């Protein structure tokens, strides 16, 4: 079918354009996984138009993956400063709780609810930023606090109730479609462009990479490392708030116990698979999105092939390991010595 042809040609073109960029490896892995599905998972590429919107596994990947993609954008910047944010899953729960409480119990307008939920995300991020940048607590420890306490806070906000809501605008957020595609895709792309402009249109990206690369030297050049760190945690909190909105909208209610559970781990994985090193420094924003898509495609694949949820993490881990190995300079050096066929990656992804 010609759509098939266009898709694969497009993907090959994407790979070619990025052949010497760090994003090449996660992109290649994603392509291989899709190719595998193309031939072995019946119906994976089937698309169907009903009521003017698309349905199919590929659409599910985007819709389901949108939360991790949003989280990964914020997480990328945090990891680039040499930190990590374990609390984003819990912040999602807080944002969902605030949203449901404002529309479901306080009966205020949808706009107020969304603003309040995002503000909660920002506030939670500011708290993390204060601990890491202000009090110089190690990021893992500092964000662990909110990771542990966050779901309790969400429970307090909703008073332990599961609050449902039906407002069409809120339901649209996580379930609606725009131009036949899930609205979440628009949301992710808009957020990606905003983030890219934020870091590359200003000097913020350079400062983040400088702080992550050598904090002492950054201090000596008159950079305020603490201010940069504070900003990235606030931004990660905002992304988590947004992801929390989507998650709540998906199920039309706030579930303090399960919203965003373990998603912080998927977000960290997406960033690492995408080519940003946990040690900080250079970051790959697009790589993180591809990493998130890869992880979601894996989950959807396993689901579509009826692999039980209990053993699904094993094949997932294997694929992720493979991508990380492909990026390892040591291994690539060895392979290159054997073959000299692998493209050299610019900018040293590790």
């Amino acid at each position: 079918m010609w759509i098939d042809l266009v898709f694969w040609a497009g993907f090959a073109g994407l790979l070619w354009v990025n052949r010497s960029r760090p994003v090449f490896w996660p992109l290649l892995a994603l392509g291989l996984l899709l190719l595998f599905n193309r031939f072995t998972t019946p119906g994976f590429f089937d698309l169907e138009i009903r009521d003017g919107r698309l349905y199919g596994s590929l659409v599910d990947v985007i819709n389901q993956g949108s939360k991790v993609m949003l989280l990964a954008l914020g997480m990328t910047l945090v990891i680039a400063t040499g930190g990590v944010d374990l609390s984003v899953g819990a912040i999602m729960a807080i944002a969902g709780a605030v949203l449901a409480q404002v529309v479901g119990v306080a009966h205020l307008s949808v706009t107020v609810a969304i603003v309040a939920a995002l503000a909660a995300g920002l506030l939670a991020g500011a708290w993390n930023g204060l601990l890491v940048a202000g009090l110089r607590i190690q990021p893992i420890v500092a964000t662990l606090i909110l990771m542990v306490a966050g779901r309790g806070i969400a429970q307090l906000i909703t008073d332990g109730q599961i609050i449902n809501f039906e407002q069409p605008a809120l339901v649209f957020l996580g379930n609606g479609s725009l131009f036949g595609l899930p609205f979440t895709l628009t949301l992710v792309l808009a957020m990606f462009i905003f983030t890219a402009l934020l870091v590359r249109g200003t000097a913020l990206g350079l400062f983040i990479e400088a702080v992550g690369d050598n904090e002492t030297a950054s201090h000596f050049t008159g950079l305020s490392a603490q201010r940069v760190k504070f900003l990235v945690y606030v931004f990660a909190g905002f992304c988590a708030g947004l992801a929390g909105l989507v998650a709540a909208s998906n199920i039309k209610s706030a579930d303090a116990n399960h919203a965003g559970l373990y998603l912080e781990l998927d977000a960290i994985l997406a960033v690492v698979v995408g080519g940003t090193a946990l040690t900080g420094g250079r970051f790959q924003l697009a790589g993180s999105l591809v990493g998130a898509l890869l992880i979601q495609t894996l989950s959807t694949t396993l689901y579509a092939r009826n692999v039980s949820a209990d053993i699904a993490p094993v094949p997932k881990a294997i694929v992720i390991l493979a991508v990380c190995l492909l990026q390892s300079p040591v291994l690539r050096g060895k392979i290159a010595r054997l073959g000299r066929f692998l493209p050299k990656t610019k900018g040293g992804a590790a």
Partner: protein
Amino acid sequence: MSEPILSCRGLTKRFPGVVALDGVDFFARPGEVHALMGENGAGKSTLIKALTGVHPRDAGEAVLAGKSIHPRSPREAEAAGISTVYQEVNLIPDLSVAENICLGRQETTLGFIRWGAIRERASAALARLGVAVDVDKTLSDCSIAIQQLVAIARATDISARVLILDEPTSSLDDSEVEELFTVVRRLRDEGWAIIFVSHFLDQVYALADRITVLRNGKLVGEFLAAELPRLQLVAHMMGRSINEVEALQHREPPARPAGEPLVSVRGFGRRASVRPLDLEVRRGEVLGLAGLLGSGRTEVARLLFGLDRADSGEMHVEGKPAAMRSPQASLRARFALTPEDRKSQAILPNLTVRENLIIALQARRGIWRKIPRQEQDRLVSQFTRALGIKTSSPEQLIRNLSGGNQQKVILARWLATEPRLLLLDEPTRGIDVGAQADIERLLAKLRDEGLAIIFICADTAELARNSQRIAVMRDRAKVAELTGADLNEQAIMRAIAHGDASHPSS
């Protein structure tokens, strides 16, 4: 003359965009110190790294004691008999001195590390060098000089036959250098073949029996030190004629400018760091800071730049009271500091030359006012030309530059901010003689245009010929100030030793 124990022929190493080593022959003989000389980026460190397995070599062979060797890592090179102290010392700051010396060679019983044996072995290794350090001390608490000696202790702790030292003396003061040389001579007399890289000509002539000169990755020649006049050596390194080199070395002594001080401090100090002192520097003036390592020179610079806060005294900038509470404040006041420890305090290793160069200027403009790319490129090309920075491209990662070229990028980083006061802590460390002359000339020009410079340097000759005034530090206090006729090496030495230039007996 003995037969070479190590012979390299046709060593070649290419990096993307540069041929760092181009068919170089090199020989090391037992009982000899062989100096490897060349400008920044000539390929000295690359030769050493290609020889010891840090970089795979593209062509050429290395024969050690009759056997062809192909080490794939420094450890394999050590096992084969070549022990190395690299230019960028690679020790682990959070471990103790003893652990650093024995790391990877621990003595174990049934898998348990024998700490007693390790301590003894480390102490013995240090004692051989005549260095007294507590082996339980954490390495990061030791001065750079001690760290350097620890690295050498580690390198000589194994039974190798070839010892390579890549710029081992660049952070040592005179007496420490002498100490190190005693050790090196002893090792030489025990029959080690020693390869030595340094940009200090005095040291090379004091130590080396033989000199090999590289230029742009190519071998210029191998000479006996006794038969190679200094000027000829410099001419070989730079690829210029002797007359040109002589012209470079000529310089007239600058006179102190008139005018109000740009920066002055009174009773300025910090407990446990610098005793209260008075200093002032005018526009268009170079104030030298002399003193031994650890005498408080660096600490003065840190205080002036706001890295540490003064807890006594006051500071005036252009007659108005001022306080530098942080590097950010200094940046706004147009102060600049090139720090002493390039690797940990200055280099952003995985960022490009361009990014490293513009970062201070960008920090002053803040997050939101990004320097347009065109202006960045203009700055980079302006400074690579002005300072002769050798890089294959502005987008090269700075860690791939040679040590001296990294140093020039750091200097450019601060010059790009158009400072009023420039604090230079050992700015010419690791820079070759030609580039040093270039930089001195550039600084003289900036000084004449009204820049105030505070110049810290362990090399008294360099200090004397560049400063209009010299403050001498000892034991964290200012002990003398030299001007006019006292601006010479002897007077500086006397002041360092006795705290006073004019009365050598006191």
